[in-house]
C-alpha cells in the first residue's frame, strides 16, 4: 500500500524522472505511429482494392506479421543497426530513433492488416458506384481513406496501444539507458528487477491510464461515427 501511495505522490507532484520517461514513451510511440500510419493505411487500402497476382499472399503475410513477437522485431532491427549491420554507419543503435524504427516495424503490419479489412468491406459496398462515377486510382484510395476515417482511427489507436505497451523490441534496440532511451515499459521492467516498486507502480499506473484513454477514445470514435451513420 505504501508503494501505491508513493506512486500516486510521484504522479501528483509531477516527478521529473517519471515525466521524462513518460514524455519519451509518448514521443517514441507517436513518431512510430505516424510512420506506420503513413505506410500502413495506403498499403492496406491498396491491397483491398487492387487485384494483382500474389495479393492474397501479401495479405497472408501482413496478417502473419501482425503477430510477430516484439523481441524478434527488436533483434531484426538490432542486426540492421548494429555497427557491423548494413545500416550501422548511421549510428542509430541505442537511440530513440532506433526505438521508433523498431516500433514502426512492429505496428505497421497491424495498421495495414486492420485497415485492409476495413477498406475491403467498404470496397464491396462502393465498387459499383465508384466504377459508375469513374473514380479510380489515387482518387479512389483517397476516398476510401476519407470515408473509412472513423474505423481507421480505431485501427491507428490499436497500433498506438500496441506500441506504447511494447517492451521487447525497445529494450533490445534502445538499451534502456537512463535519460536517453528509458521508456515506461523498460523502466518498469528495470525498477521491478531492482525492487524499486514505487516508481514501477507509478509508471504502471500511468501506462494503465494511457491504455484506458486510448480505449475510451476508440469507443467514443465508434459511437460518434455510428450516430452519424458514418461507421
Amino acid at each position, binding site marked *: 500500500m505504501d508503494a501505491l501511495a508513493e506512486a500516486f505522490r510521484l504522479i501528483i507532484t509531477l516527478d521529473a524522472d517519471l515525466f521524462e520517461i513518460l514524455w519519451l514513451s509518448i514521443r517514441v510511440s507517436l513518431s512510430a505511429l505516424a510512420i506506420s500510419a503513413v505506410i500502413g493505411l495506403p498499403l492496406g487500402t491498396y491491397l483491398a482494392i487492387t487485384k494483382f497476382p500474389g495479393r492474397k499472399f501479401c495479405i497472408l503475410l501482413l496478417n502473419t506479421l501482425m503477430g510477430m513477437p516484439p523481441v524478434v522485431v527488436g533483434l531484426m532491427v538490432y542486426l540492421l543497426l548494429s555497427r557491423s549491420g548494413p545500416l550501422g554507419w548511421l549510428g542509430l543503435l541505442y537511440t530513440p530513433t532506433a526505438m521508433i524504427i523498431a516500433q514502426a516495424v512492429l505496428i505497421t503490419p497491424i495498421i495495414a492488416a486492420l485497415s485492409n479489412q476495413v477498406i475491403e468491406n467498404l470496397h464491396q459496398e462502393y465498387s459499383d458506384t465508384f*466504377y459508375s462515377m*469513374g473514380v479510380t486510382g489515387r482518387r479512389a484510395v483517397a*476516398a476510401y481513406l476519407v470515408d*473509412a476515417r472513423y474505423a481507421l482511427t480505431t485501427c491507428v489507436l490499436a497500433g498506438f496501444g500496441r506500441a506504447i505497451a511494447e517492451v521487447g523490441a525497445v529494450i533490445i534496440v534502445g538499451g534502456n539507458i537512463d535519460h536517453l532511451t528509458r521508456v515506461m515499459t523498460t523502466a518498469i521492467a528495470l525498477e521491478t528487477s531492482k525492487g524499486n516498486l514505487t516508481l514501477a507502480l507509478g509508471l504502471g499506473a500511468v501506462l494503465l491510464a494511457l491504455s484506458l484513454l486510448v480505449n475510451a477514445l476508440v469507443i467514443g470514435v465508434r459511437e460518434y461515427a455510428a450516430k452519424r451513420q*458514418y461507421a
Partner: protein
Amino acid sequence: MNTLRSANMPNSLLPIRISDLGLIKGDRAVLGGVNLIIDEPGITVIMGPNGAGKSLLLRSLHGLITPDQGFITLGSLTVADSRNEQAMVFQQPVLLRRTVLQNLAFAAPKIAKTNPQRLIQALESVNLADRAAQPARMLSGGEQQRLSLARALLDEPALLLLDEATASLDPASVLMIESLVKAQSAQGTKVILVSHDQGQARRLADEVVFISAGQVTEQSPADRFFTAPQTPTAKAYLAGEILL
C-alpha cells in the same frame, strides 16, 4: 459533358447495338445470345420475370459485367469508351459517408470547383436543398435515392440507366424520381430502366423490351406492348401470372 443537354441535340450514344450477348454463370446461360438495337430516344423500359436477365443486361451496358460472348456498341463507341457519357442509379443507393452536398461535390469535382451553385440547384431539383449539410446516410430511403439520381444527373449523361431505382420507395419519392427522369429524357438523355412495376412502365415507357429466360422475346412501342403483347410469356406477365 457539363453543358446542358438539349432535346434537339443528337444523342451520341445512339443507336445502342447489342449483338449476340451471352453470359454464363456456373453451367447456366443467364443471357443467351441477346440481340437488340435501341435507336430511338426517350425512355426504354426493360421488363420481364424475376431472373430473366434484365439487370445483367443493364449492368453489361454500363460495363459492370464483362460478357462471355458478343459485344455492345453505343453510337460509335464501345462500352468502355462511353463510360463517361453514362450514369447509373442502382436499386440500393450507395452514398458516401459524408454530407449530402459533399456527395454531389465528390461526384462532380469540376462543377464543385467552377460552379458550386449548380450543386445547390441539383439538390433543389430533388427537394433536398435544406438537407445539404446533413450526413447523407441519415436520409430516408426515398431521399437517398433522390440524391443518387441528382448525383447521376450532374454531368448531364447521354445515357441514364436505372436498375429498379424506385423499388420499395414511398410514393412521393417515386413521383419525384419519375418526373425527373421524364424531364431528363425530354432534354435528350436516353433513359433505359429496369422495372417490375407495370404502372411505372405504363407511365414512363416509350418503348418496352421484354426479356424472358435470358432472351429478348419482344421489343415494341409501349402502347402496342401493353395493348397487344406479341408473346404468350409477355401476355401472362401482364396478366399478373406467376412466371417461373
